[in-house]
């Protein structure tokens, strides 16, 4: 089997606070293969962004990775020197943030921002970098790129700015792109286009994508596999078709109710009452147990890990016995 582009093992991210240590990401493991799109879903505060920030090494202190390891094409990157990590950011891992209106520096021309990024990572001259920048803008679908490149961010619409952000994330041809809710801040009418552009460009470059979103619809259409997070933990992970058709984890079953276009089946539009616990008050046992319709005694005492239960599927739920792969 080929080596994964990204391999995260038992990742734990913690914040020391005055009222004790909060665990924002709790013992998460997953892989992403080259050219693959991994969707990451979960309610607000589930730890999706924090996982992405950990991978690219941008967790704000006092938060820190307190356990586990992150490997990029086999090399550990969670414990390397800041300078070495800086050389990876933007070069081998690209990042796309949620809000294109605030991701770009308002005082710099688009050309300056792209060229400086290209020249930080690749040994090319100013003229060559500019040529590449225009080509990139053209690729992400900015009309008349050669002329628009010297405009300032505020001269572009939200959708166009997100295209610029995508161009910036891709300008050194990274192996992995982390897109943290790349369309949430955009007009609904352009969301699909942006996702398409991003996916297409990554496919051409054989880059893997970690796509964080609230939108199960986007996952269903875009991702190859999906990871469902709950209260900092991985609830379920597996191929997107299988998970949608046949969700194992009771929480995932509830989430599936939020894909209006794919499920017409009314009895699957299951509601989940209650809300995700705060980090300071995660219940003992399975973190989902107070809201789980199928809760039983063991759930309140022992915490389930995301263990394999079927080929390429892992679920953190006591309802499913672990299957050791042969």
């Amino acid at each position, binding site marked *: 089997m080929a080596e994964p582009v990204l391999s995260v093992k038992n990742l734990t991210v913690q914040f020391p606070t005055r009222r004790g240590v909060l665990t924002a990401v709790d013992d998460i493991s997953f892989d992403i293969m080259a050219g693959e799109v991994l969707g990451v879903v979960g309610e607000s505060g589930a730890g999706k962004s924090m996982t992405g920030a950990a991978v690219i090494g941008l967790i704000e202190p006092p938060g820190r990775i307190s356990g586990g390891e992150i490997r990029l094409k086999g090399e550990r990157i969670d414990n390397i020197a800041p300078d070495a990590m800086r050389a990876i*950011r933007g070069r081998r891992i690209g*990042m796309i*943030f949620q809000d294109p209106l605030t991701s770009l520096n308002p005082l710099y021309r688009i050309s300056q921002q792209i060229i*400086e990024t290209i020249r*930080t990572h690749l040994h090319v001259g100013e003229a060559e970098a500019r040529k590449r920048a225009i080509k990139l803008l053209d690729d992400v679908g900015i009309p008349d790129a050669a002329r628009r490149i010297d*405009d300032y961010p*505020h001269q572009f619409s939200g959708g166009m700015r997100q295209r610029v952000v995508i161009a910036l994330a891709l300008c050194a041809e990274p192996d992995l792109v982390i897109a943290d809710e790349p369309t949430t801040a955009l007009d609904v009418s352009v969301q699909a286009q942006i996702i398409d552009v991003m996916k297409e460009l990554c496919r051409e470059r054989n880059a893997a994508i970690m796509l964080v979103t609230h939108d199960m619809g986007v996952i269903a259409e875009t991702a190859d596999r999906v990871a469902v997070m709950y209260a900092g933990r991985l609830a379920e992970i597996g191929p997107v078709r299988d998970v949608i058709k046949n969700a194992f984890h009771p929480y995932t079953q509830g989430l599936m109710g939020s894909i209006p276009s794919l499920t017409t089946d009314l009895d699957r539009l299951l509601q989940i009452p209650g809300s995700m616990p705060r980090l300071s008050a995660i219940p003992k046992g399975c973190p989902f147990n107070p809201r789980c319709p199928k809760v039983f005694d063991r759930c309140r005492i022992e915490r389930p890990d995301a263990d394999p239960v079927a080929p390429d599927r892992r679920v953190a739920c006591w309802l499913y016995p672990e299957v050791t792969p042969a």
Partner: protein
Amino acid sequence: MLAFILRRLAQSVIVMLVVALIAFMVFRYVGDPIASMVGVDTRLEDQEIMRDRLGLNDPFYVQFGRFIGNAVRGEFGISYRLQQPVSQLILERLPATIELAFASALIALVFGVGLGVFTALKRGSWLSGFIMSASLVGVSLPTFLIGIGLIYIFAVELQWLPSFGRGQTVDLGFWRTGLLTESGLRSLILPAITLSLFQLTLIMRLVRAEMLEVMRTEYIRFARARGLSQRAIHFGHALKNTLVPVITITGLQLGSVIAFAIVTETVFQWPGVGSLFINSVQVVDVPVMAAYLMFIALVFVVINLLVDILYYVVDPRLRVDAAGGAK
């Protein structure tokens, strides 16, 4: 751009007219101009004739119009105290004040921005903490105390620097400068530091606050995610955004440096317009007072105008807004 400048110019003219009105009221109604010009033994009839000849019996608006006309030509009458044209007095003393003001503005700007950036980036280090506490002293101590303190330490005790005056100056014809002689430069140090301290701490705290604010923005995070070097992020992206608001404040501060120079000039017996003003107030030398008022207003208005234009050059978003959103 042109429309923007014209609009600002129009605003400036209005401000100047208002100040002129105030200056005129001071000029005309504080004390009696005739009484100040003639001896006590002049007969009342003669005073009346003079009054007529000087136009002091004309209607208010005629007199105000004449005042403005003269002011535009730089004529503010004759100083009662020194019996010289006021404009000449001010021009003679202007270089001293301007050199002092620019020297201290330069100190304030360089150290203010430098220390502001340092304390923002090295937040939490003991040196930053120390600088921040020291800056509190800087804002809270009155200027004259700082000046006297510096004189005591560096002029009286250590005897390194002169405590008063401007040292030797060189006359360039239109400008009498103290920047070309060693004694001139040495004399400049203490007053320039004294005058700069308040603005320095102000700029430093402003830069620090802005910088911390900017460092939290998404575009700085994104710049990090793009793998840019620490230097490019701090001194390119962050500092440039920090300076946008700092320019305004600093520019306006230059105006107040010139105005605040009064105290420093008095403490150091610096022969500038500020000390001219103080000496004039003591003897109610009204023409000088009125002219000084106009002069300070002009300084503020001109600086304001320059700051606006600079702001406009630095921040591309303003250019579009001012052009009605058109690209």
